[in-house]
Structures are given as C-alpha cells and as structure tokens.
C-alpha cells in the first residue's frame, strides 16, 4: 500500500511537471539557503580553528593588567625571570618569549618596504614549524649574542630584494629609534590558503621577518609581556592559572592584577560568536522554508480541488478516509522531500564550488543535512495535512458529480 501510494504520488507529480517543480522551488531555495549558510558558518569556524591551530592553540600571553594604575618597574620581565619561569614550569612550557613585535621601514638600495618584525627565540621553529628554503633559522648564538640577523618568508624577500634567495643580503631598518644594518640568514616558505592569508592580513605590500627577541627589549633590558606555548598534553586551564599565580607571587601582586590571554579562550569566543551568527542567519533562512511549505499547501489545495472527481471515484471503489488522506500526504511529503534533496545538493554544491575556488576545505555536516531533510519532510506533511483532510472528508456523491 505504501508503494502504491508512492507510485501514485510520483505519477501525480509527473503529470504536472512544471507546477510540481515550481512548488518544490520554495523548498529547494529554503533548504538550499539553510544548508549553504550553515555550511559556510561551519566552514568558517573550521577555518578559524585551523588558524588558531596554526598560530598555536596552546599559547597564552601574560602581562600586567591595563587596569593596574601603579605599574612598577618590577612588573616588567627580565631575561633572568623568563629563564626562571622556564625552569619552574619545565614540564609544561614548550616555548617562551617576550611576544615583542614592531613595525619599521626596511630599505635595500632604493627599495623601502614596511616590515613587521616579530621577536622570537631560536626554538620557535619547534612550536611554529616552517619550511626553510634558503639558509638557516635563527640560532642560540643569534639570540644570546643579539645579532642583527633575520629570517623572512619568500614573499617578503621578493618584496624587498626582488628575489627569493636573499640569504646574505642586508637591509637598513630603524627599530626602537636605532638605525642599523640587518642581515638575512634564512628564507622560508609560507603555507596558507587564500582565505587565511586574507585574515592574517599579510601579503600585499607589507613584509614580515623574525628577529632575535633579545633585540626588542624595553628600557633596562626588560619586556612588557611573556608569551608561552604549553606542551601538547598540558591541561591549559590549570597550567595558565598556576603560571599567573606564580608570576603574581614573584612580583608581590595578586593574580588578578595580571592579564592572561590564551588562544584557547579567544578561539572559544570567536567560535561561539560565529556559531551564534550562523545559527541566527540560518534561522532567518529557515523562514523561507515556511514560505515553501505554504506554497506546497496552496498547490495541494488546488490539486485536491482539481481531482475532486478522482477522489469521488476512489471513494466509490472503497477508499477509506485514511486511504485518501495518506495518498495526498504522501504526495506533499514527496514534493517536499524531493525539494529538500535538490536543495541540499544545491546548497552543498554552492558551498563546495565556492570553497574549491577559494581553496578552503569545506565542512558540510551530516547532522545539518539530516536535519534539513527531516525538516522539509515535516514541512511537507504539516502543510499537507489540511489539503489532505479536505480531500478525505469530501462526500463521494458530491465528488462524483463534480465537473
């Protein structure tokens, strides 16, 4: 009987191909937009979490709170203090530096390019791996000896020197008021997709380079902040709390005087904002599903009126109220489910094509697809109930007499 109903429904849908398609269109657009919007949201979240993974999800920054008014000189960090912190938390800390960075113009012959300089320690490559293509990475000697050596990416090298292999080349830059000659010791290749590059704000006409963090000190050889990468298996929440408490104790302050910022917290926040955003927009898109459902109801009402005579014949041959009801419900559910299926293909297809054009891995969650299909079937059944019950209730004599 179910198969009978299905084949009857498909036959009825086929008879009015154009009308059936237009009816489905509401659902197609509704489901398509919900799927694409939610998938775009999920793709973005995935992308952000990738970026955070790239930047280092285990990292955190610690510095004296901006709300603290009596900032003392001891609130800054010295190299010795950083060394001590590294020793105390030897099991947890994978990397520590001062999170120092600055912008300055770099000049080579007649070319001047604005550069972002990031101060790093020699083992930064362990927590943020890069592919060295020319020369070498910064080493202990560069750091401890405060040598004016830099490592930059291929794009920056081409920007400043006009070629990728800039090893041995020197440029002039004025950092913290002192104009000096810097030497390129290595060049690495950046690996990121177009979207990441866009978000990270690099590319374009600004270069970036790593220099020994010991070159970027505040007065009296101190640093304003520390940046820590925890090891992979470390419980981040507990570790950063202990680190905060330790630093506060050594500097005779309360833990809450120290501002702690972790990538984890940031990512959670961004993720929840994006999740909320895509849910909200998806919800708005879902309204179009409602409109689609009303379209189905409208067409089913027309169909019931058109087929009054057929309903009468069926009733005279022994169809019960339930039989007629199920026949029309099946039809509206199939209309809606077909629309849903096409909508999913369309929505996922748009996201997929967009993703592959932008070179971004696309996320289409199966749960969203399942939800969309069931929602569209529910829409079909819900909006089919009224027309179907009108068909089922009709009086066979009146229905037979209907022309």
């Amino acid at each position, binding site marked *: *009987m179910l198969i009978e109903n299905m084949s009857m429904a498909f*036959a009825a849908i086929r008879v009015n191909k154009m009308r059936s398609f237009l009816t489905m269109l509401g659902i197609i657009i509704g489901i398509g937009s919900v799927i694409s919007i939610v998938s775009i949201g999920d793709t973005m979240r995935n992308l952000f979490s990738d970026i955070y993974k790239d930047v280092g999800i285990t990292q955190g920054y610690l510095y004296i709170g901006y709300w603290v008014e009596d900032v003392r000189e001891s609130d800054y960090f010295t190299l010795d203090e950083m060394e001590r912190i590294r020793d105390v938390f030897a099991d947890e800390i994978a990397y520590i530096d001062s999170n120092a960075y600055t912008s300055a113009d770099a000049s080579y012959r007649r070319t001047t390019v604005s550069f972002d300089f990031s101060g790093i320690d020699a083992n930064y490559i362990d927590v943020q791996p890069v592919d060295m293509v020319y020369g070498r990475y910064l080493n202990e000697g560069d750091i401890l000896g405060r040598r004016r050596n830099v490592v930059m990416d291929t794009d920056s090298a081409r920007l400043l020197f006009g070629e990728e292999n800039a090893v041995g080349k020197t440029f002039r830059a004025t950092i913290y008021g002192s104009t000096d000659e810097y030497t390129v010791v290595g060049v690495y290749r950046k690996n990121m997709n177009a979207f990441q590059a866009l978000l990270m704000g690099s590319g374009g006409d600004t270069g970036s380079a790593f220099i020994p963090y010991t070159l970027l000190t505040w007065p009296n050889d101190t640093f304003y902040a520390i940046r820590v990468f925890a090891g992979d298996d470390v419980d981040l929440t507990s570790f950063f709390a202990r680190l905060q408490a330790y630093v506060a104790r050594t500097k005779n302050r309360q833990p809450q005087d120290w501002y702690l910022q972790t990538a984890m917290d940031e990512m959670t926040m961004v993720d929840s904002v994006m999740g909320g955003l895509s849910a909200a927009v998806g919800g708005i898109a879902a309204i179009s599903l409602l409109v689609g459902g009303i379209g189905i109801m409208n067409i089913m009402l027309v169909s019931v009126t058109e087929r009054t005579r057929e309903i009468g014949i*069926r009733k005279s*041959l*022994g169809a*019960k*109220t339930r*039989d007629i009801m199920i026949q029309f419900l099946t039809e509206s559910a199939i209309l809606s489910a077909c629309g849903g299926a096409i909508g999913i293909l369309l929505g996922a297809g748009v996201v997929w094509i967009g993703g592959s054009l932008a070179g971004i891995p696309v996320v289409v969650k199966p749960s969203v697809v399942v939800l969309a299909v069931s929602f569209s079937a529910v829409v079909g059944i819900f909006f089919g109930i009224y027309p179907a019950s009108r068909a089922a209730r009709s009086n066979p*004599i009146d229905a*037979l007499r209907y022309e």
Partner: protein
Amino acid sequence: MIPYTDRLAGLLGRRKTPPYLTENLSEDLIVLDRLVKIYDTGTIKVLGLKKISLTIRRGEFVAIMGKSGSGKSTLMNILGCLDQPTLGHYYLDGVDTASLSPDELSEIRNHKIGFVFQSFNLISRTSALKNVELPMTYARKSKRERRERAMELLKRVGLEARADHMPNELSGGQRQRVAIARALANDPPLILADEPTGNLDTAASEEIMELFSRLHQDGATVVVVTHEENIAAFTERIIRFQDGEVVSDRKNRPALPESRRGKEEISC
C-alpha cells in the same frame, strides 16, 4: 452497531472480517424498508424518496427506470451506499447500512458493490490494468493477486490486449468494459450500473448490455438504472419510478440483441 471489541481489533490492525462484511447467503440481496430521503436545501425540504419498500433477490437482473427527478438517482446513490436514507432501512446482504460509519460504508462499497457509471469514471492517466486493480488495492490484496485477477477480468471483457492503455486511448465502449472489469474486481454480490450506456452509441450500448446479460447468466445480481426502454428491455424485471415512488414493478422477458436472436431461434 459493531461491538466495541471488533472496532478495537480493527484499529489494532488484526484482520478479522467485521460482521458487516461476512457473507450472508439469504435469498434477498437487497431489502428496502419504507425508505425516505429528504433533501434539505435550507429554505425548502424536498422529498426525494417516499417510503420505498422493495426487495431484490440474489441473481436478479433489474432495471430501475424513470425520468430525471423521479428519484431513481437518489435510490441509486442509496443502493450504492454513497448516500444514506433519512428514514427507513436499507439491508444489503442482510446488513442494515444505516448504522455504518463512512469508512464502513467504504468497505461495503469495496467488497459488496461493483459500480458502473455513465461517464465510466476511470482514473485518468492510469492504465486499464491499474484501474481494474484499484478496488483490490483498497481491499489490501497482494500485488501479484491483483495483477493476476485484473488480467483475468480484462480477458473476460475482451480487453487483455489493452491492459497497458490509458483511458484516453480507449473508445467509449472499451472504457465501459474496463469499468465493468473493475466493478467485478472484488467479486461483489451486487453490480450497480447507473445509465451505463448513456454515453455510448447503439452498437457499443448493445455490447455492454450483452456483457451484463452474460454476467447475470453467470449468477451475478445486476441492477441497471436507465431511462431508455430498449436498455431496460434486456433485463428481467423493470421497476418504474415517478416522483419518488414506485409506480410499476413487473417482470420482463428479456429481449435478445439482434446479433443473438437468430441463433436463439435456430436452437429453438
């Protein structure tokens, strides 16, 4: 009323034959007891049938005649369980139909009545075979059983070669024969034909009436509603209606169609 437990069994899907569907082999297939039908149009009440009492026995071939407005269509609808009388009782196969719900009436129509309509009433864009299968579909017969029986019935009306044709690909006479095959699908005790030849030419009309005669000879009870004397002439009993009342009810010696009359005379 059907006992509550049986209704419950029906609801629970236990396929127990309800009492109103059980075979009842009494002599009288149709018993009308002081049947009254009043149409309430809101402003005036129209008396459609005035205390009709009538009995049709199993195996009879009956014509119900009358002009339009005589009440014959009203009676036809009630006989077909498409409508219910305002007063009085209609016993079909021993069951009082007045007490049945719309769905129970559907089942009665499905199992006990085979309809043949003036305008054929085949489902459009559906093959002849599927049309014949339809009553069996509603009787929840298996696909194989339906197909076999439908083919057998189409063969019986001489249309097995047209099984896959759509109604609009068939002539009027062929359509009506498909409709007759459909009426026979669940082997109902009563065949009810409402002006079955009204839309057909003389040759096709004769063909259809011959088919009814044959069904009757095979033991079916056939009731034909018509206003044409030459159609009624095929039957064995003619009941005339006027103003909602039976004005005459007499036996008729069936006239044989031209084609068969010759043979009959030779055999006599």
